């Protein structure tokens, strides 16, 4: 072999080494980004805990201009809106997934699947705009309320935001149920409905649970839509009628107020502290969903 060819070969070997090392680094970059995000949230958010007494920070009154940083109404606001949204989206989403996967004729499936993809693609600010201009006035008139911008309005539209996630995860879960289960059910003389209701859906329940958690994660983190349609009143959402009153969530508070605060002020740090709470909440929800997924994958259930 000529020396030229050998040197070309070593050069390409070195090049290869660099490329493969680069790819390895890129592969691990996602871990780095998660850590980086958490680091910057802590860096800007921790001072809130030293500057504001905990009693104030977890108090019930949010009036930043008077140095009252009670985040409790915001946390409860997020929880009320999220749980209501999931209560609406879960039955609709699972039923739709079952219909699309188990019952719908081929042509209907060809229409339904792209429709749900379209819903997933609609920007939340567009849904928020639609909610403000069309849904909120309807709810105000229909229920005789002083304003249509309420927790319920937000939850209703938020449910549609979470639906594509819930439907697609639930569909995957139904897909993973072996056909033999369905055949066995039918062979026992059960109707198609009995097979779906008593065999297929129970067999897919851990996947459906995962859909709920991912859906909750989406709902609790949604910002623009919630800011535009929930009315943004930072009051404690207590009592049943709170659902039909304005409410304010953690995400909306950050989005609405961060633009107006001086960086480095107490208010600024508190908004980052709310960011830490949101980060941890979604982290836990996603971790739980991921655990369900890994467990399923080990059992060879969910592909």
């Amino acid at each position, binding site marked *: 072999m000529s020396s030229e060819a050998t040197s070309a070969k070593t050069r390409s070997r070195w090049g290869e080494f660099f490329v493969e090392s680069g790819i390895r680094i890129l592969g691990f970059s996602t871990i780095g980004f998660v850590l980086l995000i958490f680091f910057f949230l802590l860096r800007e958010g921790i001072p809130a805990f030293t500057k504001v007494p905990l009693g104030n920070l977890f108090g019930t009154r949010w009036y930043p201009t008077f140095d009252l940083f009670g985040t409790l109404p915001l946390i409860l606001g997020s929880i009320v809106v999220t749980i209501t949204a999931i209560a609406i989206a879960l039955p609709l989403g699972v039923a739709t997934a079952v219909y699309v996967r188990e019952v719908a004729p081929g042509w209907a499936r060809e229409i339904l699947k792209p429709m749900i993809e*379209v819903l997933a693609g609609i920007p939340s600010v567009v849904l928020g705009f639609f909610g403000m201009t069309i849904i909120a006035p309807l709810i105000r008139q229909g229920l005789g309320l002083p304003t249509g911008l309420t927790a319920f309005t937000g939850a209703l539209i938020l449910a549609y935001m979470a639906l594509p996630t819930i439907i697609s995860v639930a569909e995957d879960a139904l897909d993973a149920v072996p056909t033999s289960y369905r055949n066995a059910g039918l062979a026992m003389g059960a109707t198609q409905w009995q097979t779906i209701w008593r065999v297929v859906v129970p067999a897919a329940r851990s996947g459906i649970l995962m859909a709920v958690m991912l859906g909750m994660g989406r709902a609790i983190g949604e910002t623009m839509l919630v800011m535009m349609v929930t009315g943004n009143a930072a009051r404690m959402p207590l009592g049943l009628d709170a659902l039909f009153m304005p409410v304010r969530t953690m995400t909306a508070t950050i989005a609405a107020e961060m633009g107006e605060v001086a960086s480095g002020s107490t208010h600024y740090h508190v908004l980052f502290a709310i960011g830490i709470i949101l980060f941890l909440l979604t982290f836990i929800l996603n971790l739980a969903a991921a655990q369900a997924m890994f467990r399923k994958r080990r059992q060879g259930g969910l592909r």
Partner: protein
Amino acid sequence: MASQAATSRRYLIQRIGVGLLALATLAVVVPIVLVLATIFVRGYQAINWEFLTAMPRDGMKAGGIFPAIVGTIILIFATGLAAIPVGVGGAVYLSEYARDNWATRTIRLAMINLAGIPSVVYGLFGLGMFVLFLRFGTSIIAGALTLAIMTLPIIISTAEEALRAVPVEFRTVSASVGGTRWQGIRYVVLPQALPGIITGVILGLLRAAGETAPILFTVAAFYLPRLPRSLFDQTMALPYHLYVISTQVPGMPPQIQYGTALVLLILVLSLSLTATVIRSFFRRRRQW
């Protein structure tokens, strides 16, 4: 006969059950159609050449939305420029190099969490890191980098799926003619997976194009009737503009609001259509 009554009762229940499922599906689909139809019907009158190519005038109540359209397109390209190399590299690692061990599981966990972080928290991070710590200021580069990290999980997971779909034989054959592992990836696997990768990139960028919260404190200008001059300049963007004119400006003509919503919707949906077409076209054409 008693059993016949029971049977007919079972089929009645079946009919009711399936009917309820269909009803729920309608309750999901009909509002989607209503949203699209409303925005189309009320928005299309606003759309004309001036609306698309003129600067806003009169406190945004007249004129066009040109700077917001251009801003969003610049943001899409800048985000892609940052996200594509990292996303495709990450996908190549996961599909071609990663073994099934705890390190890989940690990467997947990180991806799931990255995908789940609320968009407004990305905004906070972008503000803390790019705008303030790295001193980029409120700028296109700060917003694009924030959006790029947000789109990574989508790009990586779709691209990985496309790479994994390429049969093992392609790699074996490349190795059997003396190709190294990287050569096999570079000249055989990546070209085969390209349509799938492009689909993933479009899906990621589509998400970036429609997001408002991450650009709220990193790029978006409330009202800037000129085009950005550099990557370190602010810009208007369609989603933020829609938010501004529907909540922050009193007395806004509804036509302009619906027109802006329609332009944003068309942009996002045409991207999503492109992704779908590429995917189905190449799926039909491929030989394996």
